[in-house]
């Protein structure tokens, strides 16, 4: 064996094994993630109706069109508002759950599993349960039955926009699906806090809120930042439950329309308008990146913990 190959293979064939283990994943990542992303960016500069190998270069035209498209802008605004609401609520709910479960004196594992279980449920299945049984608009839907006990008229939860009851359906479905997962992240964070810190705090006379405010929360900062970031990205990537709850006979209402659903209809439906679709996707990605960076800077993600 020549010395070059020996050198390339590294000590104990370390490089070879590295390639064997990492290679397939990198290849998959390149083929299924990076190439499509780059291709999509390339497409966003072309007039690409019903083709992915367009020839008609339009420069920034698609971007201008998308930014001028009031439906796309309103979907972005809706989702900034949605994120501003859902991120803190899920954050507080999952933190609360984690604190409660962490303090449970018995059946801790049971509670942990019960709250985590919804995470294993598919968004599509959950939306169907929400749509067809809990928030069904007819008088025998679960919520309407409950309202009926108090003599309140049935409400068509997903059909009416005044008041916008559909948000209640969407938000509760999302909370139920997501809170358990972030609870687990918080639990892991809580269990890393050294008991001696609590003991020290107790000796110093700190109890209740003070412990939470000055000990638990600061110790959870790394976890909190990660949870916030994940929540935010998830909010902007919202698709499944919205699509399954609100789309009907080939159309999606103009309210509560996430950017991804809008792009799905524009680019992938019968429209097959890949130019505008890609431009919209790039704008959305930039927006998410911008917010994530801003948040990271603000909260200090990746900064060295002391």
């Amino acid at each position, binding site marked *: 064996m020549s010395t070059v190959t020996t050198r390339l293979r590294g000590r104990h064939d370390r490089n070879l094994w590295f390639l064997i283990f990492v290679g397939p994943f990198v290849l998959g990542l390149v083929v299924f993630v990076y190439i499509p992303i780059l291709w999509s960016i390339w497409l966003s500069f072309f007039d690409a109706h019903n083709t992915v190998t367009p020839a008609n270069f339009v420069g920034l035209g698609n971007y201008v069109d998308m930014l001028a498209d009031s439906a796309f802008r309103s979907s972005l605004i809706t989702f900034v508002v949605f994120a501003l609401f859902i991120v803190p609520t899920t954050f507080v709910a999952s933190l609360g759950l984690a604190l409660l479960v962490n303090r449970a004196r018995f059946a801790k594992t049971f509670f942990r599993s019960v709250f985590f279980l919804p995470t294993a449920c598919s968004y599509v299945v959950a939306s169907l349960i929400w749509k067809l049984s809990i928030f069904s*608009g007819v008088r025998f839907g679960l919520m309407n039955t409950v309202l009926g006990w108090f003599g309140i008229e049935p409400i068509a939860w997903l059909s009416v926009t005044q008041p916008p009851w559909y948000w209640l359906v969407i938000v509760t479905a999302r909370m139920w699906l997501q809170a358990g997962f972030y609870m687990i992240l918080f639990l892991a964070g809580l269990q890393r806090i050294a008991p001696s810190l609590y003991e020290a705090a107790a000796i110093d006379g700190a109890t209740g809120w003070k412990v939470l405010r000055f000990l638990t929360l600061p110790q959870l900062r790394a976890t909190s930042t990660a949870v916030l970031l994940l929540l935010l990205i998830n909010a902007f990537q919202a698709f499944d439950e919205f699509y399954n709850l609100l789309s009907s006979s080939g159309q999606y209402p103009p309210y509560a329309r996430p950017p991804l659903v809008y792009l799905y209809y*524009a680019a*992938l439906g*019968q429209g097959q308008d890949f130019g505008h679709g890609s431009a919209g996707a790039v704008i959305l990605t930039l927006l998410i990146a911008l917010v994530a960076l801003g948040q990271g800077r603000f909260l200090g993600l990746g900064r060295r913990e002391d």
Partner: protein
Amino acid sequence: MSGARGNGFNRRQFLIGAGGMAAMAVAGCGSNTGRSPDSGSSGSKPALSQWYHQYGEAGTQQAVERYAKEYADATVTVQWSPGDYDKKAASALLTDGGPDVFEYGNGPSIDMVKGGQVVDLTDLLGDAKSDFTPSLIARMTYQGKLYAIPQVTDMQLLVYRKSLLSAAGIQPPTTVDELLAAAKKLTTDKVKGLFVGNDGGVGILGGPALWSAGLDYLKEDNTFGFDDPAAVESLRKLRELFTSKALLLGAPTDWSDPSAFTQGLTAMQFTGLWTLPQIQKAFPDDFGVLPWPKLNSSTGAPSVPVGAYGSAVNAKSKNVDAAKKFIKWLWVDQADKQLDWAQSFGFHIPARKSLAEKAEKLKSGPAADAVKFVNENGHAQTPLLWTPKSGTAYSDALNRIIKNGTDPAGEIKAVKAIVEAELQRVAG
């Protein structure tokens, strides 16, 4: 109609979310195109792959596979596609792995035609051309060239319970106002008067609302068709219906399924022809059918939307000529198979007049009325030049008009601007 037929619709709706995306992935990356390998296939016969969406009725898949097998001049492999077929087919046409022959709702889209993705089939019809339903042929034709052959006609119509109407002392409504009054009168604490879909009619009444006012999506010369006070009036009626408390909303199934009607949740429902067998089973001879009524006694005409899956040939096919021959054989020459396809499984109208006359099931009762509506009041669901972007703009506007009560005149202006830009793009 496009994508909606019989029981399969529910199953398909279930699959749309998950299946739609998966189908994209399959169509984009899969290697199994349903086409048997070119080499090694029997002798010199060309191999063709033919795509269908998943029809709901039992036996349909076996039927199309049987038809394909009986064709002697090529080895035809059928691919039956559950899930979001339109998106799957559209994206497969971009690749080399697409079908040779495929069906598409109301024929290929204008962008497929303009993009050269489908083949001109004008010369296949021959003498049979005059036998096909003219509105369907017109819908699948662009600039004098035919791009698909209609397989079977579907339509939507209003069904009502005769016994409930006569108990309330109401005549079948002939104008929108009468319909509104009837719906209100039929509403009790258990039963609602009318069901037009859980979105209050946004999905299916866009067309009927225009036709009933004597208008259309586009005018004859392909300019915007409903910048008109009658359209404003007609759309306002839909809002009135939505707020009347007589409309069933939030039902477990949507308009394309007869359950809301057969389970007694509503006295009238706008639904598809395909639901009639189930309705007949639930209420033997206790139901009647109507077209969507005209706006008022002086304006417009009754209307029903008519659509058809059309069989088209992929321009990227390696065997374009063999594919054209196969389509001609199946959808032009083999009349008995076309009749079988329309009649043996669900409830559809053959796309050819000579066959519609032969169809036994269509000779009496509500079905015979339905055939009459197609011939007298039928409108193609949407015009060929009504692009998906125009469709989205209109359904957004309908949503705001019907659900939020915004002013129809302003919304129509906004739709007009988008439609005109789209028409210009397509023409250019």
